[in-house]
């Protein structure tokens, strides 16, 4: 099993993003997902910038996948998506069915991201027929779910499996921008206020229990998934990639440690419930 680095889900200033991926280029991480998957208003990096980063990472020996938006609302977003799919060099991570449709129409292979609803073998098989080469397990599914799917396929799936193994989970997407709203701004005049919250905005219960991280239109888990203790088991099951979803520079270190088979420092608030058929926020 190999380690992958998921797309950066937060909004950072361009120099920070460039610096981050320079460091990724020098890391042992073999597979890197790259692109804006949350909000089309975030334009610190343009499509051309992402392509340049993708080429740089490819030259550094990485496999690169371009991640696409999870929620498409405007025709302009759909047109931008077409451009991404037609880039001519890199495969895409489809985070909405629109990207599947585009890749399928062009006969291009693609990866299904965690927000594509793949809940059974028949659906996965259908997507594989359309060009899906790998899928990231939907976040709320478990080890036992995966075992059943693999068994139903006769012990081996004809496409790769990736598990969201470390990081804050993107739990939901809305039309509403929670960050802008919290700052008293309209979404259309948001001043890209997400730049001021490079790890999202923590929402706690009235008993001071961290619950969610508001990341623009995306709602994340406040707890950090850590499935590093399951790596040997995942390997036995046939999981191909263990995804680290980046929070900060430390994520590169984490991915590096995992690549070398080293134990990880425990996150401040770990969770692994989904993998064990429990509520996602639970830590077992």
């Amino acid at each position, binding site marked *: 099993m190999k380690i992958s680095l998921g797309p950066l889900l937060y909004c950072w200033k361009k120099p920070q993003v460039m610096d981050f991926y320079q460091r990724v280029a020098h890391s042992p991480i073999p597979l890197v997902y790259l692109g804006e998957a949350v909000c089309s208003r975030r334009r610190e990096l343009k499509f051309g910038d992402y392509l340049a980063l993708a080429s740089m990472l490819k030259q550094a020996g990485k496999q690169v996948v371009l991640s696409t938006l999870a929620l498409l609302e405007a025709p302009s977003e759909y047109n931008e998506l077409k451009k991404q799919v037609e880039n001519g060099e890199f495969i895409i991570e489809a985070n909405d069915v629109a990207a599947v449709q585009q890749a399928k129409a062009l006969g291009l292979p693609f990866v299904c991201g965690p927000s594509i609803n793949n809940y059974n073998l028949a659906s996965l*098989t259908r997507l594989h027929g359309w060009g899906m080469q790998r899928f990231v397990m939907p976040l709320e599914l478990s080890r036992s779910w995966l075992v059943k799917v693999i068994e139903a396929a006769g012990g081996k799936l004809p496409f790769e499996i990736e598990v969201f193994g470390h990081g804050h989970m993107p739990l939901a997407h809305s039309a509403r921008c929670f960050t802008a709203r919290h700052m008293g701004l309209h979404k259309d005049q948001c001043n890209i206020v997400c730049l001021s919250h490079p790890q999202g905005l923590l929402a706690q219960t009235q008993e001071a229990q961290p619950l*969610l991280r508001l990341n623009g239109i995306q709602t994340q888990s406040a707890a950090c998934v850590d499935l590093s203790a399951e790596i040997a088991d995942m390997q036995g099951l046939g999981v191909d990639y263990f995804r680290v979803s980046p929070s900060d520079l430390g994520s590169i270190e984490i991915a590096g440690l995992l690549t070398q088979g080293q134990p990880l420092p425990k996150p401040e608030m770990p969770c692994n419930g989904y993998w064990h058929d429990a509520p996602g*926020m639970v830590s077992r």
Partner: protein
Amino acid sequence: MANLFYINSLSFKPFYTFASTKQQGELSMELLCPAGNLASLKTALNAGADAVYLGLKDDTNARSFAGLNFTPDKLQEAAQFTHKQGRKLFLTINTFPKPGEESRWYQAVDLAANCGMDALIVADLSLLDYAHSRYPHIPLHLSVQASATNLGALSLYKEEFNIARAVLPRVLSMKQVRDLAKVSPVDLEVFAFGSLCIMAEGRCHLSSYVTGQSPNTGGSCSPAKHVRWQEQDQSRLTRLNEVLIDVSNVDEQMGYPVVCKGRYLTDAQDSPEYLLESPTSLNTLSLIPELAQAGIVSLKIEGRQRSPAYVEQVTRVWRRAIDTYLQDPQHFQCRSEWDSALAKVSEGQITTLGAYERNWQ
């Protein structure tokens, strides 16, 4: 009750045929109402629903609550009753089949075909495939749980499974609905009234993050067995699987507890706020003209889990509003008595246009 649309339904003209030939700007709109049991179904039809949607008494639909929904016998009865009145009945099979248990979902499709359902509301790819290949004559409506918000997604479902209609997630502004309707290869249905889901439906894990169950997996959002209210002095603490999602005054009118409508704290504030959304309901009465002109074929009322009294109240108001509009589109005005009648049955007694209104976003 006489109105343009009724003349159509009473002449037994299949609505989907009518709808699929609908031109932009043509005035007709189906009123689609929920039913959690036979009493609600009869109430909805009496109050003027053109069509009713319902689900089976198991986890094949996303409103799998105890005491709700239809056994196969009741479904048969519901179909006969509805068809005698020349109206339509849609079966919702919009959860995602679990590995090793797929047959339960396939059987639901078979049952729907045997009972003569007028359409199936489906989200899962494999189930769309099954229904389309076995029963190509039954119109498929893409459930909101499939989360299709754009031309690309709609095109794929149309090309592969010949869906007749899609239910749009509650994430598009009115302008975006209009833009999509102009190019959509299928008829469009929108949520007009009811509990407001603020996330892209079918892709929200907030419920399973806290309770272990989501609409996709367990058939319900924020299952009742995980809800607990505690009263302390003059306060009511609302817990979902022990997580405190709100503290309210005991006299405060609250909606059904869900994660996205709780009051939380950030580091920068001392007083709790509805950081995502407050307990409000969607009410789009004032948008009827725009939705009609955009070519939306069906207005959906949310609430299979609600009482027959809710179904009656809401259906009556919406029937009147749609009829009023169709009789004189130029002079339609939303009446305050309609809004106040709806506010009485609304969550938190507050209503909103939700994402249809750009400012809400």
